[in-house]
């Protein structure tokens, strides 16, 4: 556990603010008046029972869904309805619960794809490749290799991702998100389907990303142990509403949270 005060001092001003956001699909209310913020440099966990609206929240931040009401402010500018590519351009990267890798490409190409926004060499240079375009490719390849080393996936870099086991695929997806050098990294259940060792590895990567690169991280996670260990603050959603927003220890003992997960106690001590 880190000393709270020095960590507090390391956290910056508000990077992302979600104010009163509501989202509905037809008759289904996915989110109702949710408000919270994420500070620069922190690791924010978003937790809640299934169907609470956690993924919808990330989708709204990302620009995949446009909320019916509410405001989202990112880096001081209001960005409530932006397209996903605008979110990417603004510095938001994302991984998915069900993996969104480019299955027809290798690990290396997938992560290189994450450099898309950073590759600027124009169409004409691409036509002839040799010269500026190739130099740019090599330069970005270098950066990508750093990420590959960091995530310890060098051995599989030329393997088509469709053939990789689930745990490694999740790492590749993280790699692609990191390649974007984002300011805000949204992770949707990064530990899902992993065994204890894989979870430990992934936790270590997440912490390293946060501490080495200073990336702000918001993650959805079901494993309470991971949430407690990694996050600075926790938002708890239930049926689309926020029911708690505090430090992990406080959330752990919050009555509303316990009720949301376990239901009403019937004479059984919790």
């Amino acid at each position, binding site marked *: 556990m880190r000393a709270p005060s020095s960590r507090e001092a390391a956290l910056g001003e508000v990077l992302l603010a979600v104010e009163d956001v509501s989202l509905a*699909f037809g008759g289904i209310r996915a989110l109702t008046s949710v408000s919270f913020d994420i500070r620069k440099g922190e690791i924010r966990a978003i937790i809640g029972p299934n169907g609470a609206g956690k*993924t919808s929240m990330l*989708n709204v931040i990302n620009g*995949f869904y446009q909320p019916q009401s509410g405001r989202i402010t990112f880096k001081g500018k209001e960005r409530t309805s932006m397209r996903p590519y605008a979110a990417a351009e603004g510095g938001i990267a994302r991984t*998915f619960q069900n993996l*969104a890798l480019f299955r027809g490409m290798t690990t290396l190409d997938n992560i290189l794809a994450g450099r898309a926004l950073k590759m600027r060499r124009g169409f004409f240079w691409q036509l002839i490749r040799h010269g500026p375009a190739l130099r740019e490719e090599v330069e970005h390849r270098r950066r990508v290799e750093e990420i590959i080393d960091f995530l310890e996936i060098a051995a599989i870099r030329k393997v088509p991702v469709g053939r990789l086991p689930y745990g490694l695929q999740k790492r590749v997806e993280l790699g692609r998100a990191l390649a974007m050098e984002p300011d805000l990294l949204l992770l949707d259940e990064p530990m899902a389907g992993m065994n204890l060792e894989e979870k430990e590895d992934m936790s270590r990567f997440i912490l390293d990303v946060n501490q080495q690169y200073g990336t702000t991280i918001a993650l959805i996670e079901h494993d309470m142990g991971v949430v407690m260990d990694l996050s600075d603050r926790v938002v708890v959603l239930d049926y689309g509403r926020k029911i708690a927003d505090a430090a992990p220890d406080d959330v752990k003992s919050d009555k509303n949270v316990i009720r949301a997960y376990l239901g009403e106690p019937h004479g059984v001590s919790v």
Partner: protein
Amino acid sequence: MDIIHKVFIDPFVQMGMAPDLLVQTLWDGLVGGVLYALIALGFVLIFKASGVFNFAQGIMVVFAALTLVGLHEHGVPAFVALGLTVVVMFVLAFGVERLVLRPLVNQSDIILFMATFGITYFLIGFGQLVFGGNPKVMIAQQLYLPNGAIEFKGLGGFVSLQKIDIAAVIIASVMVAVLAVFFQRTRIGRALRAVADSHQAALSVGISLEQIWVIVWFAAGIVALATGIMWGARSEVSFSLQIIALKALPVLILGGLTSIPGAIVGGLIIGIGEKLAEFYWGPLLGGGIESWFAYVIALGFLVFRPQGLFGERLIERI
């Protein structure tokens, strides 16, 4: 100003001045539309039950008609030939399910779509090899289909309705009604609807997907046969029909891929629409706009309302 007059005023004036021609055009469009609708119906049947977009529906129409005529040419009596053709369509359905659908069972939609291209070309080549590439005459008389026309004077001129066209509309309506009853009332119809809704759920209640697919392709084959007979009786049986059958695609876009009433309504709109466009606006552009008008209408729909008039809106979940 002249252009605006020509495009927006003149054609309607013409329509008003010669109402008999208008009715004739509307009727011709209706009949064409009914035939497009029948082809679209075959598509919808297969798509609803197996999620496969059967590009080969058009060639199935031609192939069915060819088989019928070909058998008759070899001396088989008309109604026996009809029965044998039904058997052939069943064999075709069975073959497609075994050799194409089953091996490709978990592939993406695009792959299945392209596989139906393969079926199309296979049938084109096979049909030509076995029956020859020359156009043939449909054995309308032998099947007791009426010929001749009903003419009636009125509306300032006269309107001529071919009896075969009337028969086509009637037979098509009967077929749609039978299919509707089949889907709603019978056990197999229910099973088909179940499969269309969810393969997994259907499997879990013991419905055999393979059987359903054979049935559905066979049903589409029967529809194709009826369409082929009607169409062949109106003009002739030739492979160019296959290209015309592509017009069922715009019909599907208008009507939605999963809706039987949509296929009918879409077919009528396209059929009547393109005939009106050709007759009244065609001369402005040099004629022949029937070849692309339906597609451009479909394109317009695609941009503004991709699910068509009746189809289901696809929501992509992430």
